[in-house]
């Protein structure tokens, strides 16, 4: 139990230190840190609109955070979240905006198809790793860039609203039947049931890992593939499957962006922001625990949403939030440093 408390201390400490450094930067820019942080906090948490915005922004990051976390359990680093998110979103837009068959063009089917698209995209890297030993860090990054280029192609040619000569690189809006139900519609913030789905995903991931044979085998492979092979576990299959599942989780995050209405139900340029990469930060900060991932996602979302309010009400640029996020990640990477410093104090006592 003592160890678990210590484990939880480090992310909290990292956030705290980042906020202090941030306050320093704000002060240097000539603004009052307290004032800036006041707007940061209220912009994210005070009032129905704020909460809706924050949870809405957190939703894709919960999915991508789960994605990275899931792959970690299997001993792999899924950097390909961004590409998987794009593929999920593109399928959602392609089916939701263009397919007239009502049996296919409905929310559940589309979510499943998006998940499959993400699965397949990640499974490429999974297969390369399982059968050829290719390190998934490089292969998933390459797949990211391929996906990003494909996204540009899709938005400018086949999926473009009005055809290739249309006015802007975006798809038409998806049909009514494909849309995710809105929550808190009075806020008009596109906060939708995708958030609930993300929470459900968290529970499902936890359940798989802790209660099922699959989770047991995934953790074994993640810890010691040689032992797993000796025990009769099909290591290549588990490897590819785990990365595939991770991909489908991220893809659902992409689907939510389209079907939930954040971009007026269209897939437009830039809508996927950097959610895939944020997932890495979320998983690391959340110490690879599903609940930690939810809290971290909400934290990062709050920073982003609050940052806009802060920029509006003071002259602090919202990009400072990116710095805060980056500092937090560096500090998490330096986790061992904290541990060693804490231990050193103990030994000398």
């Amino acid at each position, binding site marked *: 139990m003592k160890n678990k408390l210590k484990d939880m201390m480090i992310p909290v400490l990292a956030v705290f230190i980042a906020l202090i450094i941030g306050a320093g930067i704000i002060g240097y820019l000539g603004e009052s840190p307290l004032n800036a942080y006041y707007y940061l906090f209220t912009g994210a948490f005070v009032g129905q609109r704020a909460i809706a915005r924050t949870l809405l922004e957190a939703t894709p990051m919960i999915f991508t955070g789960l994605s990275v976390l899931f792959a970690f359990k299997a001993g792999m680093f899924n950097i390909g979240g961004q590409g998987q998110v794009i593929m999920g979103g593109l399928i959602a837009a392609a089916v939701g905006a263009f397919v007239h068959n009502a049996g296919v063009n409905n929310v559940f089917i589309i979510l499943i198809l998006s998940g499959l698209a993400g699965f397949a995209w990640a499974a490429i890297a999974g297969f390369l790793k399982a059968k050829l030993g290719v390190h998934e860090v490089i292969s998933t990054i390459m797949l990211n860039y391929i996906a990003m280029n494909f996204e540009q192609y899709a938005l400018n040619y086949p999926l473009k609203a009005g055809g290739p000569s249309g006015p802007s690189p975006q798809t038409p809006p998806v049909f009514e039947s494909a849309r995710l139900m809105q929550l808190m519609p009075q806020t008009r913030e596109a906060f939708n049931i995708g958030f609930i789905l993300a929470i459900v995903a968290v529970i499902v991931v936890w359940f798989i890992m802790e209660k099922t044979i699959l989770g047991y085998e995934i953790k074994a492979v993640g810890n010691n593939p*040689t032992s797993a092979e000796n025990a009769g576990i099909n290591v290549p299959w588990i490897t590819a499957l785990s990365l595939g599942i991770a991909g489908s989780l991220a893809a659902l995050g992409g689907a939510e962006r389209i079907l939930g209405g954040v971009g007026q139900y269209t897939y437009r340029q830039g809508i996927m922001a950097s959610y895939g990469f944020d997932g890495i930060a979320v998983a690391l900060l959340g110490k690879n625990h599903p609940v930690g991932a939810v809290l971290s996602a909400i934290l990062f979302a709050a920073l982003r949403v609050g940052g806009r309010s802060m920029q509006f009400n003071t002259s602090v640029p919202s990009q400072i939030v990116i710095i805060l996020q980056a500092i937090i990640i560096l500090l998490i990477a330096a986790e061992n440093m904290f541990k060693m410093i804490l231990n050193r104090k103990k030994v000398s006592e």
Partner: protein
Amino acid sequence: MSEYILEMKNIRKTFLGGKVVANDDITLKIEKGEKHAIVGENGAGKSTLMKILNGLYHPTSGEVYYHGKGVKIEGPGEAAKLGIGMVYQHFMLVPTLSVAENMVLGVEPKKGLSLDINTAREEVKRVSEKYGLAIDPDAIISDLSVGMQQRVEILKILFKGANLLVFDEPTAVLIPQEVKELYKIMDNLIAEGKTIIFISHKLQEVLDISDNITVIRRGKDVANFPTEEATKEKIANAMVGRPVLFTTEKPEVEMGRELVSVNNLLVKNNKGIIAVDEVNFDIREGEILGIAGVEGSGQTELIEALTGLRKAEAGTVVLEGEALLGKTPKKITLEGVAHIPEDRFKRAAVSEFSVRDNFAFGVHKEKYSKNKFMLNFAKMAEEAKHFMEKYDVRPREINVGFGRLSGGNQQKVIVARELEKEHKFIIIAQPTRGVDIGAIESIHKMVLEEKEKGKAVLVVSAELSEIMNLSDRIAVMCGGKITGILDRADATEEKIGILMAGGKLDEK
């Protein structure tokens, strides 16, 4: 002036702020020109003591005197300057570099801004000629045989002017021929005025070549006597603190029909070279077949082929009528094959899992699934508790992390798991490696019980005494071939040694 070249007095070494005591008031005295053996169980503290001598560790307290003068050995560099050199059990050679490059590493000769490799080569030739140890300076370490690599290790310290040479388990990886050569080299070095300390757990070896013996147990020096007064029993008693049985009573069991049959098995290794070269043997019910041989003779690939972890190129393996080759490891297990791999931490267990989860590992689907997807943790816990009692695994805590158990207890968990599987044939590799003398007895007993239960048992071990102790028949592997199969009654260490080196026994 002391007649001792080295005195380590009241050496104490602790780690983790005093929590771990590796050396507890050890005093060691070495005479000039002698061959002094240091004996002790795993973890007794002998390696730590030698690392202090070599400067890799600093003593928490105590003094070291070299040639009668007090010295503080800050690091391997200082040790070398004093004339102390260590030949490690796991060679300190960079495999991708050449002999010359390894020799001068750390003391590289320079020509302007470049490395002067020619001077390095000359130095290698000079030292190898002086001590009569021929070696090619440009040979790449990974291309050399184990015996030759050890030679480079020895030359390395002689090159730096060593007068006191410390050998850590020097014959652990050598075939009998190479062992004989090493003993000759050691005698030559003594004739040249050197002094030798060697760590060994091979009691016969200690009796054969040492002049003096120091026994270390639990961080203390518990005995020191000249070799002429020593016997195996005396040394072992000092090591363990109680009388030790050397041969386990072998049960008289009637061996049944042939259970396992291996024919013309051909297996290639990762580099595509033939590692198992048309091997033939069979094992009967209630029979223990031991495979002797220096590591790297193909035993690893043989076991991998038998357990389905490696594809065989040709041949057949039949277990009671069922062909095993080509099947997945899981199917082979279900056919009735149990397997205790040689490196339990690397290959048989999941260190992050609890003891409970490790007992179930490998049979988690078959024995402990609730329905198609879920695990029955309650059942796992119950059976884990039962096994811990039955096999005397300590501490009796099923939820503790596997990594926290001692080596002997870890091995017991693995052994328990495999023995409890439904099986007819069990393959055991290096059963007591890294296990203390005290626990060896109980593991050997478990192996012999398998014989009593009528299983076919295959034991692979680099410890000849273990093979002699357990086996009914002994097969010797060398260079991928089985050079001979002897009945236990006919087998002697000499005969096995000849077969291990690839020779043939005279037909009488």
